């Protein structure tokens, strides 16, 4: 009898091992499928000459288009994400410093909590927020790259605040105490010693926020609106973006446009993948350098 039970227990344990292994396969399968489909369906288009620089077809049919491309979308995304980062990174890092270094005061904790909570706000709500003031009521602004950047910045800021704060908190207090004991003023200590020590973490956080924002279409739908032409004006005309292009072209009835969407998908995936890998390598190198020298 005891042997029976033992065998059953072992069987249960092994079944769990198999089931959890299957769970991993099920979880990773979509990743494989997405990459595969994007490669197969978009690969042909992506590597055609001029795809990355041409303008999307305007009302041309399968027959009449010779070159189609996603050039404007790439430029538009680049501009908006860049602008958003320009605003979000300093604000986010400074607020993160505040949340971390002054957390003994209730205020610092309030900021930390708020940033935490804000990071869970759906990105479309951020877009609706910017739309709700700028586009609806402010006569001097309209669908534009600027409002799109603001929406993206609103999404990036809480992420950067949180990751900066966490990175700073991993720096041991012993370091801060040592610096103060040497008579270094607090701001110098915070910026030059603590922040530098936490730099790999902070950099990772920033890159994470940038990558997430680069692929986000929701906040741009009614702020930047998207277009098919190269952007000329940051403030007064709609600006194209890669995820917007994918969204619009994917729903189109023309297979030509859908092909462009697949090409854009493959491009975006490659950019994200490569950025992911490179950032990991750089951060690894950075932290090695730091722990090596410290």
């Amino acid at each position: 009898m005891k042997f029976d039970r033992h065998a059953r227990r072992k069987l249960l344990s092994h079944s769990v091992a198999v089931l959890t292994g299957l769970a991993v396969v099920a979880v990773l399968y979509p990743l494989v499928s997405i990459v595969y489909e994007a490669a197969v369906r978009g690969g042909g288009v992506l590597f055609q000459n001029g795809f990355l620089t041409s303008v999307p077809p305007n009302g041309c049919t399968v027959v009449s288009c010779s070159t189609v491309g996603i050039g404007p979308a790439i430029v538009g995304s680049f501009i908006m994400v860049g602008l958003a980062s320009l605003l979000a990174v300093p604000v986010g890092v400074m607020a993160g410093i505040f949340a971390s270094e002054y957390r003994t005061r209730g205020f610092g904790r309030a900021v930390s909590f708020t940033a935490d909570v804000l990071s869970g706000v759906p990105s479309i709500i951020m877009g609706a927020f910017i739309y709700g003031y700028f586009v609806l009521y402010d006569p001097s602004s309209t669908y534009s790259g600027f409002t799109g950047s603001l929406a993206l910045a609103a999404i990036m800021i809480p992420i950067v605040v949180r990751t900066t704060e966490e990175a700073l908190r991993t720096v041991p207090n012993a370091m801060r105490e040592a610096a103060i004991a040497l008579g270094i003023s607090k701001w110098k200590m915070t910026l030059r010693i603590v922040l530098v020590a936490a730099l790999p973490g902070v950099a990772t956080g920033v890159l994470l926020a940038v990558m997430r924002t680069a692929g986000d279409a929701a906040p741009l739908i009614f702020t930047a609106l998207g277009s098919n032409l190269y952007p000329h004006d940051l403030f007064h005309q709609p600006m194209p973006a890669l995820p917007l292009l994918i969204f619009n072209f994917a729903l189109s009835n023309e297979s030509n446009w859908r092909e462009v969407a697949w090409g854009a998908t493959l491009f975006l995936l490659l950019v994200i993948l490569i950025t992911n890998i490179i950032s990991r390598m750089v951060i690894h190198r950075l932290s090695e350098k730091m722990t090596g020298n410290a």
Partner: protein
Amino acid sequence: MEGSKLTVEQLTTSSKLTVDRLTAYYGEKPAISDISLQFPDRQVTAIIGPSGCGKSTLIRCLNRLHETAYRTRVEGRVLLDNEDIYALDPVRVRRRIGMVFQKPNPFVTMSIYDNVSAALRFNGRPSRDETDRTVVRSLEQAALWEEVKDRIDAPAVSLSGGQQQRLCIARALAADPEVLLMDEPCSALDPIATAKIEELIGRLKHDYTVIIVTHNMQQAARVADYTAFLYLGKLIEFGPTEQVFERPTEKLTESYITGRFG
């Protein structure tokens, strides 16, 4: 060195656990080398030696816990009643050879009752009555029953350190093992708690073979019938406690006992 190594053929009838040329590695480095030893049945054997001599590694090989760590390897045999435990299913082995750890580690999410009855639940669910009886009996054996009988459903972590350690002993005993391994069980406890546990070890040996690792020589002298002295991963001397402490055959043993190093 040769003189104190008992060969496998001698004392086989009264040996519960026999270690035969055991070497255990962490990565490439051997933590213990070529140890041969016999642990007599229903006696208390102490393993002593300075820090890093391999006592913990040795005892963790006896219930096959050593191999669960990263990049470890074991060579040699350990015979439990003439069966090599390394040829058996480790789950079965650990049921027959229980362990109490250096820091008390009760299951933090469970009550006292659930902690003690944990092992019973693995092997199907015995009746509530049977479980109750086993729990009471184990707690009595561990000299804890009187202190907790009114709050047996309280969280295990609400007990003091010494009580938690006795709880862990009760938990190990509830699994009905044949051998009880104790890895420095008192080193995290105060003297009063230590004394209680040493006292209960003296009673436990009537039913179980006890092997205790200790860095405290006086403790070995107090509780153990036999003592093994390890140094730098090798067995230096083994024998009845009285002989090892008063008439050691190895110079190294004598130096350690008299406090010249370690």
